[in-house]
C-alpha cells in the first residue's frame, strides 16, 4: 500500500458568518492523511472537527486554502461536480445513522448505487454483499425501526462501503450507541481498515473509540496538535 498522502488539507481557514459577526472555526490548518490510514479526529465541542470532516467530504468549502483528495482539488469543483465526486469517492457514516425510514436495510444500502450505472439486479447483489460484510445478511428486509441502534449503524456502514469509496468519513459513529454496540462498530471499522485497506477518518470525542485508530490528531480552537496512536 502506497504511503502517498491521499488527503491533503493545506492552509485551510473556515469562517462562518452569523449575522454581522464572523466566527472563525479553522485557521490556517494543514493535515495529510495517507492511503490506508485510520485517523481519529478528536477535540472538544466547537473545536472544528466536524467542520474539517465536512471539508474533506466535500459537504462544505473552505474560506481559504485547498483540499485535495487523491489529487483532486475538491474545493474548486462546482456543486454538481462535487455531488458526483462525493458519490464516487466518499462513504459517510453518521452519528444518527441517517437511514431512510421508508426503505428496508437492503434498499437503504442500494441508495448510493442509484447514482452508478449498475442495473437493478447488480445493485441488489452489491447491497447484499455489503450487508454480508457488516454481518447483517439476515436483516435484508428489515426496516430501520425494527433494527437496534448497532444494527442500524451497521446498515449505515454497509451503505458507506457499497460503492467501494476512496475514503470513509465517520462522524461520531459510536456516539449514539451503548458501549457493547459501539465496540462492535469500532471493530468493524478496524476490520475494514486492516483487511480491505479502507482509508478512514473518524471524528470522535471518545478516547476509547480513538484508541482503535492508527493515528490520532487533536483539534483545539481551529488548530491541530498531532500525537501518535
Amino acid at each position: 500500500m502506497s504511503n502517498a498522502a491521499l488527503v491533503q488539507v493545506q492552509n485551510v481557514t473556515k469562517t462562518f458568518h452569523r449575522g454581522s459577526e464572523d466566527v472563525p472555526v479553522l485557521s490556517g490548518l494543514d493535515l495529510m492523511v495517507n492511503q490506508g490510514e485510520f485517523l481519529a479526529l478528536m477535540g472538544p465541542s466547537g473545536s472544528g472537527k466536524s467542520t474539517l470532516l465536512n471539508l474533506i467530504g466535500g459537504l462544505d468549502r473552505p474560506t481559504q486554502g485547498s483540499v485535495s483528495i487523491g489529487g483532486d482539488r475538491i474545493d474548486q469543483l462546482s456543486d454538481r461536480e462535487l455531488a458526483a465526486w462525493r458519490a464516487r469517492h466518499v462513504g459517510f457514516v453518521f452519528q444518527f445513522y441517517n437511514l431512510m425510514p421508508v426503505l428496508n436495510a437492503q434498499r437503504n444500502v442500494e441508495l448510493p448505487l442509484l447514482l452508478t450505472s449498475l442495473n437493478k439486479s447488480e445493485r441488489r447483489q452489491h447491497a447484499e454483499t455489503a450487508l454480508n460484510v457488516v454481518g447483517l445478511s439476515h436483516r435484508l428486509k428489515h426496516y430501520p425501526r425494527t433494527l437496534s441502534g448497532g444494527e442500524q449503524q451497521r446498515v449505515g456502514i454497509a451503505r458507506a462501503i457499497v460503492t467501494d469509496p476512496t475514503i470513509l468519513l465517520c462522524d461520531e459513529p459510536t456516539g449514539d450507541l451503548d458501549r457493547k454496540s459501539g465496540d462492535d462498530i469500532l471493530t468493524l471499522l478496524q476490520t475494514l481498515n486492516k483487511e480491505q485497506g479502507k482509508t478512514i477518518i473518524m471524528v470522535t470525542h471518545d478516547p476509547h473509540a480513538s484508541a482503535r485508530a492508527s493515528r490520532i490528531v487533536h483539534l483545539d480552537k481551529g488548530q491541530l496538535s498531532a500525537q501518535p496512536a
Partner: protein
Amino acid sequence: MNWFTQVFAIAAFNLRSLPQRKGAALSAAVGIAGVAAVLVGVLAIAQGFRHAMTKSGSPDTAIVLRSGADSEMTSNLSRDDARLISDAPGVARGSSGPLSSAELFVIIDLPKRSTGTSANVPLRGVGAAAFDVRGDITMVQGRRFELGKNEVIVGAGAARAFSGLDAGQSIKIGVNTWNIVGTFTAGGGLAESEIWTDAAVLQPAYHRPEGYQSVYAKLTSADTYDSFKDALTTNPQLKVKVSRLSDHYAEQSTLTSGFITTIGVFIASMMALGALFGALNTMYSAVSTRTNEIATLRALGFGSGPVVISVLTESLALALVGGLLGAGLAYLAFDGYQAATMNFQTFSQVTFAFSVTAPLVLTAVIGASILGIIGGLLPAIRAARLPIASALRESA
C-alpha cells in the same frame, strides 16, 4: 449517473413517506379539492346555461328582428313585415305554406316553486308553423294548444321551476284565463323555459293586434342563409336584422354566462389563494420534517435538481388527487341539477341543467396542478438550497 433514476428514487421516498404526514397532506388535498369543486360547480352552471341557450338554435333556422334590436324584447315587426319575411327566397315550405312563425314575446310573473318569490317567465305567441320551424318540440304530456283558443302549453323546464304550470291547471293573466293543455320538451333547449300559445290569441290580449316581435324561419338548407339574409336586408320595405338562430342564442347567452363565469372564477380564485397557502404549508412542513433525509441524500451524491423535481412531484401528486376528488364530487353533486336563472338580455328566466363536461373536469385538474406546482416550488427550492453540512447538524 442517471438523472431520471435520481428523480424517480427521491420522488418514490417522498410519496412513500406521505402516510407519516397524512394530516397535512390530506388538508392540502382537501383544500385543492374544494377549489376544484367550486370551479367545476360554477363553470357547470355557465356551461349548462350556454348549452340550454345554444342547443335551441340550428344553423338552418333564422330569426328576424327589427333592425337595431338586441333581443326580441326590443324588437317590433308589423304584420306586413312578417308576410314579406315569410315569402322571402330560401324559406322552406310545408304542406300548409312557408315554414315561418311570426311571434310575440311577453313576460308574465309567476311564483318559483323553490322560493315562492315571483319571477319573469316568457309567454310566447307563436304561429301554426312554429313546431315545424323549431323541429325539436315534443309533447310529453297532454296536447298542443288549439289555434284561436285561450290555451297554452308549458315547457318542461318552466313547469319544473314555477308553481301552477302543470297540465290541467290554468293561469290568469290580467282579465284572461289560459288553460294549460300540455307540457313539452325542446331537447333541453331554451324553449323549455317558455310558455307557448297562439300568437293570434295573445295579440289582442296584449293589445298588439298588428304587432309581432320576431319571425322564425326554417330555411331550405343552412347554405341558403346568406341569400335569405341578403334578400331581406336589401329589401327597401324592410328594416330588419337577420341572424342564424344558433348565433342569435349564442349572443343572447354571452352576458349571463360571462357573468356566471366571472363570479365563479373569482370565488374559485379566492379559494385557490387559501388552498395555495395550504399546499405551501404542507410542502414546507414536508421539506422541514425531511430535512435530514434530503441532506443525507445530497451528502450521498444526489443532485439538487432531482430534489427539486421530486418535491414538486409530491406536491403535484397531492394536487392531482385533490383536483380529481373535487371534480368528481362536483360531478356527483351538480351534473344534471336543474336550475333557473335570469337571462339579462331578455329579463326572463331560463331553466337549464348544470353540465359537468369533460373539458370542465380537465380545466379543474389543470388548475389544481398549477396550484400544486406553485405550492411546491418554493419549498422545493428551499430543499435544494439547504446547506448540507448545517442541515445534517440541525436535524441530527
